[in-house]
């Protein structure tokens, strides 16, 4: 994730001067992001020496990547796990529990059976999925705070599944 090959990566939380936690205030994160860009965007260095331009571009690339990663809960959780040294691929191989898997399959079936034009039914299903997602997210946040990485990894995978499902069930906006 680092911008300079071979160099140690800049920690995304440290860059924004935030505690490495899943729960954070996204409005403040966005403000910090804009404040950093207002300082380091390459446009501010375009007239200066090539070396300065390059360095600003690298820092700005880090800032953009960090913001993109931290501004979404699922990728933020993934980043927290990977920076703690959790092997995400191994966690994926291990999978989620059978019970969650069944629940997920049933939700997907219900979604397929709900007609796209039945706004009320889709709304209800979407709300149900959102509640489940939030509970996995809260579980993930607590596990991370307690450094219980295997539980956190399981919750993170649930978040991945549920956020995709949530997206698919989103009532038509327009």
């Amino acid at each position: 994730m680092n911008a300079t090959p071979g160099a140690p990566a800049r920690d995304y939380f440290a860059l924004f001067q935030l505690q490495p936690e899943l729960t954070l205030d996204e409005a403040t994160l966005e403000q910090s992001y804009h404040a950093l860009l207002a300082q380091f965007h390459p446009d501010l260095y375009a007239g200066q020496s090539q070396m300065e331009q390059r360095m600003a571009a690298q820092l700005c690339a880090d800032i953009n990547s960090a913001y993109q990663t931290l501004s979404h809960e699922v990728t933020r959780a993934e980043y927290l796990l990977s920076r703690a040294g959790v092997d995400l691929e191994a966690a994926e191989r291990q999978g989620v529990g059978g019970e969650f898997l069944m629940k997920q399959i049933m939700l997907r079936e219900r979604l397929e059976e709900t007609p796209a034009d039945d706004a009320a039914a889709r709304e209800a299903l979407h709300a149900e999925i959102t509640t489940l997602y939030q509970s996995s997210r809260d579980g993930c946040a607590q596990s991370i705070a307690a450094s219980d990485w295997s539980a956190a990894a399981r919750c993170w995978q649930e978040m991945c599944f549920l956020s995709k499902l949530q997206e698919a069930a989103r009532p038509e906006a327009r």
Partner: protein
Amino acid sequence: MVLLQIAEPGAGLDPDTKRKVAVGIDLGTTNSLIAHFDGASLQVLQDGSGSPSLSSVVYFGASDVRIGQAAMAQASAEPANTIASAKRMLGRARGEFEDDPYVTLAPGDTLAFATAAGAKTPVEVAAAILAALRERAEPQLDAPISGAVITVPAYFDDAQRQATRQAAELAGIKVLRLLNEPTAAAVAYGLDEQAEESSVLAVYDLGGGTFDVSLLRMRKGIFEVLATGGDSALGGDDFDRALADHLLAELALANPSSTQRRKTLQSARDAKEALTEQESVTLDVSDLAEALSEITIDRSVLESLIAPFIERTLHACRETLADAEVAAVDRVVLVGGSTRTPSVRQAVAECFGLEPLCSLDPDQVVAMGAARQADILVGNRAGDEALLLDVIPLSLGLETYGGLVERIIDRNSTIPVARAQEFTTARDGQTGLIVHVVQGERERVEDCRSLAQFELKGIPPMVAGAARIEVTFRVDADGILEVTALEQETGARSDVVVKPAFGLRESQITEMLKAGYEHAGEDMQARKLGEAQVEAEGLLAGLRAALAKDGDLLSDAELRDLEQNAAALEAVMDGNQPEAIRDATESLGRATETFAARRMDRSIQAALQGVAITDLESDQEQGDGR
């Protein structure tokens, strides 16, 4: 590396600094423009006869080169020597144009036009247009141009952007930034850029050969492109061709000569323009066919011919709205000459549910926005300009097993951006790895655009899966990609700036530049020396300013080391050896790396300090995010 002149947000231009002259250039498929912002007003620079636009047409005769209207005058007499719409061929492969009836290709593997002046690549055609614009501007502005912002369709891929940069280099123009056309238009319209309220702007940009749609959010001095979409091979030219094909069919010309084809195309273009105002138009076709002397075309005929193209643009609009995840758009702006067509306007209004804005000339708005941005980039900042955050239009990835694409950077990521991913070896004892870089949204490599292929060598023999190879993608603020592969154990590395597979080689450019300088009576060595001196002066001035402000960040030993390096540069600076100056500049640059990093950390803290203070108010306004 160094980052010495940390910009102070809100700090204005030093009054002692002389204003530098920068321009904005809209290099269009059909017409090109050059504009200048002098700090107070924006002007599109006109030619001697008062025309703001230059036809993007170049005539390569046996003895001379003509550009614009003068080139167009040669179109019917020497069609093959008169190149139009070359922009749609920039950065593309020869294979894509082998069967195009409107172009005559030179023999060989590269995409080049056969002309009386020899084979000419699209890059050279574009360079001729850019040079003509520069020659138009310099006498009027009474100064050499320090730099230019050149606009490109947002949907241009990496190869097309590289080709545009090469064209500028050939034309002797320093590119401050490649700016996406819809973003430039938004800048020109961005009058209330400091507004507290956030608003979403859609830019619908249909030019001669390209279509772009971008959604931007503007708030408190930040212009953020949320998503962009489009088609880099769709535009008003397609309207002309559809109508020309219709005319050829009406005239029962099954096998038109290239002259007939050109004349028909010109008639179609005239008819399309006339139908913007009129309900029907009658064309004189007596010199095209014997059977008929005139043809009448109703607007409805044109509309049904172009409906499929308009539908394609609307499809892209809907996809972009979905990508941007915005519920509603506050304003829609029309850009590009093709938005004059009434049915285009109507379709856009229906798609967004809004009457589109077109208070600025749709042909000039892009150049105007570019000029404004150029003035900022060249250093004439007033301190209150909006910050532009642009995105890459297409995802970037690598080929993995089975011809599948592993995506590294998603489309609509804010640039500049860098991402690294780790790969490993598949076989025991594997010592090399082919890195194949592709661009596009499809899952299979063959459905994406191949950008580059290179090999990382020198991986120590290990069992399969043991090597750790980090591949880093870095996209700069121009949207241009650089890829690095690094084997973590041994440090074996291999990096490429992804060169356009279909563009010019570096050696070709150097040759052409040399020829150009000889032609202009300039000395390449003198120019190199000048450039090296400017770079060295900039670095030294920056270092002095940085030491004055943040010298406390250095130990005495570090300070002495820096001073020695600076003295070494000063010793060679006034000499006549550009290489020596460049080497000393680089070594001073390296010496300042630590200092620069510390200054950067200090200013990160300073930048975030402000946020912490405003925190409380914003929490109440905005709730907890989501």
